[in-house]
């Protein structure tokens, strides 16, 4: 019996995700669990004041990053908002570089100059987490512009699709409307993924956005293919998202996704969460995306059992623990690094007080 046939034994209707191999799905399970474990440790480190600034935890939304990034090619550009640790890991960033960045260490992905909200990883085609709500949406349009330009004008690249993530809190920003208009006008291959966790910080979506039950209308207004995806079931994410990616790549057109998800933690680490009930959180935890996929892999595909799941979790916990230990012991940035990476071509007299120069090579390059 083929794997695809065994994969679907509980369902009558064939699904696109049936074609995914067990190894791929086990890889996704691993990636989701890595993110969850990583974020647990991130919260601990934040509570111990090892991590400063703002810190936004991704727990609960893992199926979005892993499922969507799992549906594209490695050289498809990705750009994010500030809740960005999960996507960075899903894209393949070394957990050490991610954690060390939050610790403000020289070995961090941005050499300790970015912090939690600025996960950049050039070799993994990750164009950053961005701190200003909605600011990354024109950037995503621009990455798609560049991708299309490379393919069409320079003749050097293949057809790519940019994934541009934003929260539901960003959908009210003017920049996003301008970004969508330009993408549709110039027919650019970008998919705007609204990670709709129902809250813009502490303001529920029906209180921050008009006609919030029908977000797809916003994409449709620009003649973009607009799809609502239940983001708690990663197989469903793939079933719906992969065809959209293929279409956007092929036709070099933008798309809009209302991706229904839920974050288990507060907006940031300093959020007392008075705007929602514990019952609501528990209701979503009961539909947890990792538990969902695990159930599928254990009971339908029968490619993992309790022991190997336990072993996987143990291994991932060790990887994350190592990233914490690495970050604890990693070197601070050299004081001189304050003046590097300001200019690609530093010249005299750019500042009355600072002498800019080239810095240490980024550890990811």
């Amino acid at each position, binding site marked *: 019996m083929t794997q695809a046939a065994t994969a679907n034994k509980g369902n009558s209707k064939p699904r696109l995700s049936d074609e995914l191999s067990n190894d791929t799905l086990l890889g996704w399970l691993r990636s989701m669990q890595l993110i969850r474990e990583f974020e647990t440790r991130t919260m601990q480190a934040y509570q111990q004041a090892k991590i400063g600034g703002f810190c936004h935890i991704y727990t609960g939304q893992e199926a979005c990053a892993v499922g969507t990034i799992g549906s594209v090619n490695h050289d498809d*550009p990705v*750009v994010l908002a500030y809740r960005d640790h999960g996507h960075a890991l899903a894209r393949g960033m070394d957990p050490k570089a991610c954690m060390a960045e939050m610790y403000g260490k020289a070995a*961090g*992905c*941005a*050499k300790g*100059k*970015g912090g939690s909200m*600025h996960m*950049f*990883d*050039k070799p993994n085609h990750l*164009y*950053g987490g*961005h701190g*200003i709500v909605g*600011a990354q*949406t*024109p*950037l*995503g*349009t*621009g*990455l*798609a*512009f*560049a991708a299309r*330009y*490379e393919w*069409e*004008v*320079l003749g*050097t*690249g293949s057809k790519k699709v940019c994934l541009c993530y934003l929260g539901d809190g960003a959908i009210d920003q*003017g*920049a996003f409307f*301008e*970004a969508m*208009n*330009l993408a549709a*006008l110039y027919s650019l291959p970008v998919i705007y993924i609204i990670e709709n966790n129902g809250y813009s910080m502490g303001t529920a979506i029906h209180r921050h956005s008009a006609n919030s039950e029908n977000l797809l209308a916003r994409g449709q207004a620009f003649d973009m293919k607009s799809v609502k995806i239940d983001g708690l079931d990663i197989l469903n994410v793939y079933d719906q998202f992969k065809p959209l990616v293929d279409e956007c790549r092929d036709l070099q057109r933008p798309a809009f996704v209302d991706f229904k998800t839920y974050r288990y933690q507060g907006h940031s680490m300093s959020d007392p969460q008075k705007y929602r009930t514990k019952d609501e959180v528990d209701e979503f935890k009961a539909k947890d995306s990792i538990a969902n996929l695990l159930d599928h892999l254990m009971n339908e595909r029968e490619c993992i059992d309790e022991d190997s799941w336990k072993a996987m979790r143990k291994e991932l916990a060790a990887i994350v623990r190592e990233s914490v230990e690495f970050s604890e012991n990693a070197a601070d940035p050299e004081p001189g690094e304050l003046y*590097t*990476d*300001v*200019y*690609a*071509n*530093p*010249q*005299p*007299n*750019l*500042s*009355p007080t*600072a002498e800019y120069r080239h*810095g240490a*090579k*980024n550890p*990811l*390059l």
Partner: protein
Amino acid sequence: MTTMDLHPASIENVPQPDFSKPLPSREGDRVIQFREALREAMSHEMRQDERVFLIGEEVAQYNGAYKVSQGMLDEFGPKRIIDSPISENGFAGMCTGAAMAGLRPIVEFMSWSFSLVAADPILNNVPKMLYMSGGQFGCPIVLRGNDGAGGQLGSTHSWCVEGLFANVPGMKMAIPSNPYDAKGLLATAIADPDPIFFLESERMLGDKAHVPEEQYYIPFGKARLAREGDACTLVSFGRPVNFCLEAAEKLAEEGIEVDVLDMRTIRPLDIESIIESVKKTNRIIVVDQSWPFAGISSEVITQVCERCFDWLDHQPVRVNTEDVPTPYAKGLEYAYLPNPERIADAVRNILP
């Protein structure tokens, strides 16, 4: 110039300009307009480097709101000369992303006044991207357009953004005062791997002068001594350099000769040339078309005080636009600007 291969993946870098090469003569009879000089610089770089494209409102089919890009659509086609909607936040942000990915956008703001709605991409992203990505993603972008008052456009359309924007580290700012420099500075701007804020003036686009046909690259941070004298140092940027030269003509009739320094770039600031002149004249007046409070003139004067205070025989003086919103009425607008009369008076007032 340092060559830093920011985007080595698939696209070849063009060679960087050789600044040791002497610049061509400013004298000659190939007289063209300021706007044509800008066009020549862009067109040359676009022929050299396919990553360079031009985008902005009316740049393509309309041939440029101010005819800077006239004919460029015909030569380069609609994939590289791109009409944008009136959506500065959107297209400036889009080009920021495109620059991160390795393209070399030239963004035309019809007026720098309109760039204020693009403040987030151009101030929060463009100059900081290299730093906050720990050196991974630069932003080789040229943002250019008309800056400054002078056409009775009223308060919202008359911004001189240099005082406001030059405050941000990570950007460079060039501000030519004549067609020759416009071409050479814009060529350098496009070739540079850093983000360049390039300030033109609608009032100067029709100015004519000899401009060599060949492409040449004026180094940033090198001022031009536009006129020589020993009574006082006049330091200025962009259009008011011409007001300084007019004032200098008048003063010469009175037997007063002044140094006029055309700074050409604000960031980097050629403070050495200023110091050299001050050591000769012992007096300095900074003529700056932005507002006085926390502006370019304040910066120059601070640096002069820090670096050659003992050489001054008179406190430094600044001539700015008046510290009010830009008025519409012709007479009021003239009085608001740092005009030649105000500059000449300032010189007379600080002479012994």
